[in-house]
């Protein structure tokens, strides 16, 4: 009797392993009757999991922490992608007519991010702090991700902190240039995204959790062996191809969370004491 699992995902390459597992029938092999639900707004995924509309959903690490801070019983069942210095895909871009030399140049400027308190924003602020730029001297505004290039072009913002494929596209269209690899500068190797489920569900369905993890493993194997076919599947599920794949990583460890917990503490993001060990499913 296969377990029915609805998997929520946003259109991002981080989760390619799951698309592949779905596409290649790997989930079925591991006794999971999976359906994929595309959820455009990442911050909705925890609510969708809690409401039971989906059983497993993808999210970024800060969101997992926020949800737990709010009191939701959500746990990380697997990792998805890491951001590494060798292979960056999140950067700070300056409008083409702006000459950026040092972090202090940002003082008095407006920076567009795809979501306040998103992983991109949290890391950006941590970077400002690291570089001794006062947070209240930089205006951080939120805009819809696909609009950020146009906002940059029309001078609504001076900088954007943005993720691929738009990152690359802005550079290609000469709308802006990469100013700083701020993400990698803060932490050269960090887990940014992972798979989420409710603690309750995980307790009741240990087999399904195990199956899911195995399926993701196999999916990653497939990607390594068939990068071209994986690109085809990527396009099929999210509508476009990223310039390159991120560093996939399906193992989530408590240490990965500790980094963001500390950042959050520094930026006063959380109100409660969170225990990373309880949030990551061993």
């Amino acid at each position, binding site marked *: 009797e296969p377990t029915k699992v609805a998997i929520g995902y946003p259109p991002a390459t981080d989760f390619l392993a799951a698309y592949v597992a779905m596409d290649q029938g790997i989930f079925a092999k591991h006794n999971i009757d999976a359906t994929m639900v595309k959820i*455009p707004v990442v911050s909705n995924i925890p609510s969708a999991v809690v409401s039971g509309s989906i059983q497993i959903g993808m999210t970024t690490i800060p969101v997992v922490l926020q949800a737990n801070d709010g009191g939701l019983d959500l746990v990380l069942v697997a990792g998805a992608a890491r951001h590494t210095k060798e292979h960056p895909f999140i950067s700070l871009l300056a409008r083409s007519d702006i000459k950026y030399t040092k972090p202090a140049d940002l003082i008095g400027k407006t920076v567009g991010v795809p979501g306040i308190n998103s992983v991109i924003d949290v890391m950006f602020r941590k970077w400002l702090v690291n570089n001794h730029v006062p947070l209240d001297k930089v205006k951080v505004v939120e805009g819809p991700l696909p609009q950020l290039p146009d906002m940059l*072009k029309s001078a609504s913002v001076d900088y954007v902190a943005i993720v691929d494929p738009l990152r690359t596209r802005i550079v290609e269209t000469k709308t802006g240039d990469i100013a700083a690899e701020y993400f990698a500068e803060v932490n050269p190797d960090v887990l940014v995204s992972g798979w989420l489920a409710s603690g309750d569900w995980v307790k009741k369905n240990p087999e399904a959790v195990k199956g899911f993890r195995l399926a993701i493993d196999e999916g990653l194997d497939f990607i390594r062996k068939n990068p071209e076919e994986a690109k085809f599947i990527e396009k099929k599920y999210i509508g476009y191809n990223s310039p390159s794949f991120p560093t996939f990583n399906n193992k989530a460890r408590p240490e990965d969370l500790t980094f963001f917990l500390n950042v959050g503490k520094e930026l006063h993001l959380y109100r409660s004491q969170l225990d990373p060990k309880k949030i990551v499913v061993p």
Partner: protein
Amino acid sequence: MRRLLLGAIIPVSSLVAWETSSRTGLLTLESLSRPSDIVVAGYVALRDGSLLLATLQTCETALFGLAIATVIGIAVGTILGLVPTAERVAGPTVEALRPIPAIAFMPLALMMFGFGVGLEASVVAYACVWPILIVTIAAVRAIEGRLIEVAAVLELPLWKRMTKIVLPAAFERINIGLRVSAAISLVVAVTVEIVLNPRGLGYNLILAEQSLQIGLMWALLVWLCLLGYVLNLVLSHVGRGPTAIWRPL
């Protein structure tokens, strides 16, 4: 014919201006595609059936929510309109609930209903009920007092009083509330789909946006307007129904 021509002046000229300015390079924004690209994208979506399915899903929920709002709005509105004391007692609470954006209740609705029709329809109903309620109260209060007295003297029971006097007399005005709410129902249904509910036009819209298919996104928006236009046309024809005959010219 003349009317059609007159009505076409503004839309046609703005479309031409848009197309030419983006072709001549006056307008080079990526998220604003050209009218011609939009038509092509729309045609493709229409051909593969995805557009019609999404339309059906959106309309179904929007109308369902609107129907709930209409029934509640008119029923409560007529009572509050006819009984000033009731209006003064319940009015302040209504006024406090009215400005709360329905979207704020989405997480709550999600917990109650999960993804699907219930989630969306309940949010739509919440948003739509207020205009209908307010306009109905005003419409009922604007009814010629003599007619209410006629109903009182004839001792019409509540139901007959509603169907024979109050609703026909207030119909045209209530219909304005309905038309406002019909547009709102579409807007809110689409918004819920954009933000949360994975179905319908709004979902397709945000997916098109997220996957950077700007032409398709605009095509969906135009299609949405078309849908609202048709819905409004239907409602304003219904509105002319029983009452228009006696309306002086």
